[in-house]
């Protein structure tokens, strides 16, 4: 049992100072910009909540938000079940386990801009392996730079390639913690593979699945580098996700006020959805 001790704050102080420096100062800068208008020369005028209203009403923001939710929804829909299936079919022990784990973790260790370049090279028509195979062998008309649908499918497959392993590793960690006795008992009772999954494996994976879904939600909702390098948000605006749009406004057009207001709305949405996920998925434990 943990004991009450207020001096423990001293242990937390370095972390607090470091994170507060990095989080609070920039956050206050953003809040500052979000309520002011500037015409350059470091002159600022009070704008109130005008930017927030403008952003929330703009079609551009709503479209980017819609694309962002669609993207996150699709990748969760693919990555979570796929991750569970792969984890379930992994061997429990033996020589191949560490080899499998290392190979599966490899995509997560590649810098994000390299992931984008790699998929760009992989999917180029005529030159790339996938582009050549689809266009010249199968005869499917596939060109990421021209067709929005191709671009979308490529961005989704890239994310599945990049991050499904995280779900696999987490689920696998949950699975190996199940004692053999559970399986033996299930065998004696004549349980079907489905009931073994439903009543033994799934409950054991619940904690790690919560972490997996939360992490995947947060990271996919904030995704920037990979789709930006791969498609640049195009063709047109078809793969312009929220972060890409935000950087366009902030660093491309240098509209600091609207960009700051958009940042805060963006952050609030991420926080809210994460909190809802978290409460929903841990509700059963509390009862």
């Amino acid at each position, binding site marked *: 049992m943990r004991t009450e001790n207020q001096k423990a704050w001293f242990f937390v102080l370095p972390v607090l100072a470091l994170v507060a420096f990095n*989080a609070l100062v920039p956050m206050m800068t953003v809040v500052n910009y979000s309520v002011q208008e500037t015409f350059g020369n470091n002159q600022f005028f009070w704008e109130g909540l005008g930017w927030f209203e403008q952003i929330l009403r703009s079609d551009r923001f709503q479209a980017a938000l819609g694309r962002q939710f669609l993207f996150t929804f699709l990748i969760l829909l693919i990555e979570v079940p796929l991750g569970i299936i792969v984890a379930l079919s992994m061997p429990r022990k033996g020589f191949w386990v560490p080899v*499998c784990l*290392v190979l599966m973790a*490899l995509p997560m260790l590649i810098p994000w*801009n390299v992931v984008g370049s790699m998929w760009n*090279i992989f999917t180029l028509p005529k030159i790339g392996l996938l582009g050549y195979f689809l266009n010249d062998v199968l005869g499917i008309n596939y060109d990421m730079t021209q067709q929005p649908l191709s671009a979308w499918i490529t961005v989704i497959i890239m994310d599945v390639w990049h991050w499904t392993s995280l779900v696999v590793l987490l689920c696998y960690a949950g699975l190996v913690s199940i004692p053999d006795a559970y399986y033996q008992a299930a065998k004696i009772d004549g349980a079907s593979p489905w009931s073994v999954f439903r009543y033994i494996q799934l409950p054991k994976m619940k904690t790690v699945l919560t972490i997996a879904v939360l992490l995947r939600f947060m990271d996919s909702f904030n995704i920037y580098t990979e789709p930006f390098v791969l498609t640049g948000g195009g063709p047109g605006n078809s793969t312009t996700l929220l972060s890409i749009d935000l950087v366009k406004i902030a660093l491309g057009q240098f509209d600091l006020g609207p960009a700051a207001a958009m940042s805060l709305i963006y952050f609030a949405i991420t926080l809210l959805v994460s909190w809802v996920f978290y409460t929903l998925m841990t509700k059963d434990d509390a009862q």
Partner: protein
Amino acid sequence: MKKRSLIPILYIAFLMLPIYWLVAMSFKTTNEILSGFSLFPQTFTLENYFTIFTDPTWYWGYINSIIYVTINTVLSVCVALPAAYAFSRYRFLGDKQLFFWLLTNRMAPAAVFALPFFQLYSSIHLFDTYLAVALAHTLFNVPLAVWILEGFMRGIPKELDETAYVDGYSFPRFFVTIFLPNIKAGVGVAAFFCFMFSWVEMLLAKTLTAVEAKPIAAVMTRTASSAGYELGLLAAAGTLTIIPGAIVIWFVRNYIARGFAMGRV
């Protein structure tokens, strides 16, 4: 049993295909790449790698990246150790709220922080230094390190602490000579994840550097845009960025799965 192992094999094959293509491209000449499709390099060349290893702008990109990643990993783990100890052993005013607040920093999109970070680090004259990138990356690495270490520390019974005090150990001596060796695996896993997230993050690293501490990503972007379309060179540079990660992961292969699983959620 045979049928079941087919799924991991297919999955790994899917993961390896784009990586294979990147590596294959890096051994091709620009002429061969542009002239058409070939599954294997026809005229095998090491020229792309030679360019990278002889041009200082290229290889300094790697060295810069490794330096700030190392500073970040050491810094993150060192400040996270006492904090994780406090969270795992004591209750104190606002501990739950503090823990949640730390985790929310992982939810903030890096794109939001790019511009304010640039202004913040410029104003304290740290712009374009290793320290700037290392400090900026602690924003998301410190919470993660605290989270992982706390999980491992909770697994150590409190009796260990009490026995040490009875034996007359001072706190620092107990922490370093008795407690740390017990959570070696946890420190390894935390360091691995800090390394990983600092190594792959490129948006902040690029924003906070110009010349002196330029990461490999910035060098790659410049090559992709200015020197025409040298795909072979780009592929070779990409291939080299995979190697440090592959080396580090081999060391922690038996613990990676456990790392996240022991978290508090």
